[in-house]
Every structure is written in C-alpha cells, then in structure tokens.
C-alpha cells in the first residue's frame, strides 16, 4: 500500500506532465487553497498543481461536469477520479452531459478503510493510475442496510418513515448528486412536491428522487454524506442496484458504452410472463 504522500507525489507528476505536454487544457482536483482549507480547484499550470491533495474523499464528478459544460471548443480536462467519480462521469457521458473526448481521468484507489466507510463494493476506477486496488465490501451485508431492507412491508415502512420524516428539504442530496442534472428539477414544486413544508412528503419527494436515479446511481454516497438529518439515502439505491444487477445483469457506471436496460426495454412491449427475480419475494409481506 502506497503512503498518502507517495500517491500525492505521483498524482502531481502525472498532472504536471499532462499539462506540460499540452494533453489537457487544465486539471481538476482537490487543493489546499488558503491556509488549511481544502476545496476543489482547477489547475491551469504545472506550478499550481503543487497545492494538490487527495484527501478527504470529495466527489468531483459534478463540478467537473459543470466546468466542461461551459468550456470552449477543444478544452480538455484531466480529472482526479476515485472509482465512484469515474462511474459517475461515465453515466454523465451516457446522458450526453459530458463529452468523452474532453475528459481525461486520472484514477486513484481508495483505501480499505474508506471502502468500509462508504460501503463501497468497488473502491477503485476501471482506469487506475495511482494506488492499489483493494477489496470492497458488500453493502447488503451491512447491518444498518439490512435493518432497512428486511422485514415485511409494514415494518420497513415504519423504519423508513422514521428516518425520512427527518428531511429538512435542504436539497443537499440533489445538489450533491453527480447524476441529478434535470432542469427543471421535479422536486422543486407542484404538482409533484408541495412547496414550503417540512418534513416534505415522503412518497413524492424521496421516491421521485430514488426512481429518477434507479438505473444511473453509482452509489457514491454523496447524497447521504450531504444530509444534515443523517438519512441513509444510499440504502434505497442499494436495493435498486441489486434489482438491476439481478434482474438485468446491469450495473451503472461500469461501461461507458453500455446503455441502461430499463430505458431500452421500454421501447418494446415487455414479454408476457417474464420471471420475477427471487429476492423480490422477500420484499412482500
């Protein structure tokens, strides 16, 4: 396992080389900006790269997309990516939000400790440049996740209601989500969600969000980390991701060319009497 400093040094020299060789117009990563404050930063010269840091985990896919959206023709951006950042960027490419040709990923591996903290089953990007890939964990083995996904409908509804009614409608989950890019956002008002009240309606707010992301969430955990009320939002997505994996053999963010099966299967009438995956029965009373 490389030390953090060795990883930073390697990342710096990689980014500097990309900038020096003119491979990219700019690089994007975390930096010590003033004194002790860490924040995302655009590096336009190799010298600026000296302020690069890699920790803490800081989701960079969405800000990277925002930079690329307004970038001029021919702009290329190198982005320091963890596994979840890379997968989110792949999803944004699939949805025509990011131009694949304008993006160069510089992949870094997460530590085992980070994988455990995020309940991440794939704590590394497919293009790994820095660090060594470690084993992930299966989120569905986590007791907290199990608690919310197991039991009969009534039990689960009670447990979910208890946490979801803590929502203060800060929109932090939506704002932090690398994939939430709809404009206008359905969560912002009538007829879908009643404005001006908290807790917000659970079914319309939280389930619209969950289903909007069903086939694209990469389980980066940014929504949950941003939630001041501590709502375990990714847990909803763990169930969705399992359904896609077991029902369609599909996982968001793994392959930039593979389109979502849900979107494509809907273009034709579904076959009659399709088998229902076994685990669905566990969700019934």
């Amino acid at each position, binding site marked *: 396992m490389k030390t953090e400093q060795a990883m930073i040094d390697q990342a710096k020299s990689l980014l500097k080389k990309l900038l020096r060789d003119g491979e990219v117009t700019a690089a994007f990563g975390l930096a010590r900006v003033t004194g002790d404050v860490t924040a995302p930063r655009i590096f336009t010269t190799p010298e600026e790269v000296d302020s690069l840091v890699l920790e803490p985990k800081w989701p960079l896919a969405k*800000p990277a997309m925002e930079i690329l959206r307004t970038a001029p023709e021919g702009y290329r951006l190198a982005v320091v990516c963890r596994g979840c950042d890379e997968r989110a960027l792949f999803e944004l490419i699939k949805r025509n939000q990011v131009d694949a040709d304008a993006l160069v990923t510089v992949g870094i591996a997460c530590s085992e400790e980070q994988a455990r903290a995020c309940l991440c089953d794939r704590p590394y990007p497919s293009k790994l440049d820095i660090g060594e890939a470690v084993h992930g964990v299966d989120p569905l083995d986590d007791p907290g996740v199990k608690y919310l996904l197991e039991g009969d409908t009534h039990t689960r509804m009670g447990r979910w209601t208890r946490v979801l009614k803590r929502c203060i409608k*800060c929109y932090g989950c939506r704002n932090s989500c690398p994939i939430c890019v709809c404009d206008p956002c359905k969560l912002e008002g009538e007829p879908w969600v009643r404005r001006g009240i908290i807790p917000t309606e659970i079914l319309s707010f939280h389930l619209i969000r969950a289903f909007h992301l069903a086939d694209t969430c990469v389980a980066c955990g940014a929504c949950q980390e941003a939630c001041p009320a501590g709502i375990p939002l990714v847990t909803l997505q763990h169930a969705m991701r399992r359904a896609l994996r077991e029902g369609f053999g599909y996982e968001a963010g793994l392959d930039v060319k593979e389109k979502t099966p849900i979107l494509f299967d809907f273009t034709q009438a579904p076959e009659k009497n399709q088998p229902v995956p076994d685990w669905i029965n566990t969700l019934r009373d």
Partner: protein
Amino acid sequence: MLLKVVDGRVVDTLPDRESVVGNGHLCIKGWSAHEFVHHPDRLTHPLVKKGDSFEQISWEDAISLAAEKFREIAEQYGGDAVGGFSSAKCTNEENYLFQKLIRAGFQNNNVDHCARL
C-alpha cells in the same frame, strides 16, 4: 461553507467537508447563500436623501456629512442623543469597531443589536 467563484462572481455554495461545525452539511439557506450576493438590488453607491428620494453622493461627502451631523447633534443635545444598532450579521471586528465608535465617539453606551428578536 465554500463559495465557488468564476471570473469574480460567486456562482455556487458548497459545504465544507472538513468543517468540524458543518461536517459537510448545509441547510437550504446555506445552499442558497450565494444567490443574493449579485442581486441587482444591491446598493452600490452612498445615497443621500433629498426630499422624498435618494441621490448619489461621493464617499468623501457621505462620511463628512455623517460625522458633521452626529457631531452637531452631540453638541446641541449632548452625546447621549446619539446611538447605534450594530449587527448580528456583521463580523466580530466590525461589531467591535461599531461599539467603540459609539462609546468613544459620543461617551455613552447607546449601542445594541437585534439579539433578542
């Protein structure tokens, strides 16, 4: 709380993931904190009231007008006739200077702010 700045304009607010206080969290007002910063209603020049409306005035004239009027009031009615409301939105240093300005400038303690409201 971090501000995203592009070409001299604040375009977004982000939670500070390393803050011991916020711990990467913001409320809806925090997430929206940048939205009023560049609002077209922002005051950009000192204004003096002429009749029922306001007119632009230079900083130099504005400051001497304020000093002159407050001094006149203090001379005519005594220092106690001047007071000030400091602000729970301003910094510590600004609040310190404000109370010092009233206390040392007019020899009274007529300084307060909206803590109770």
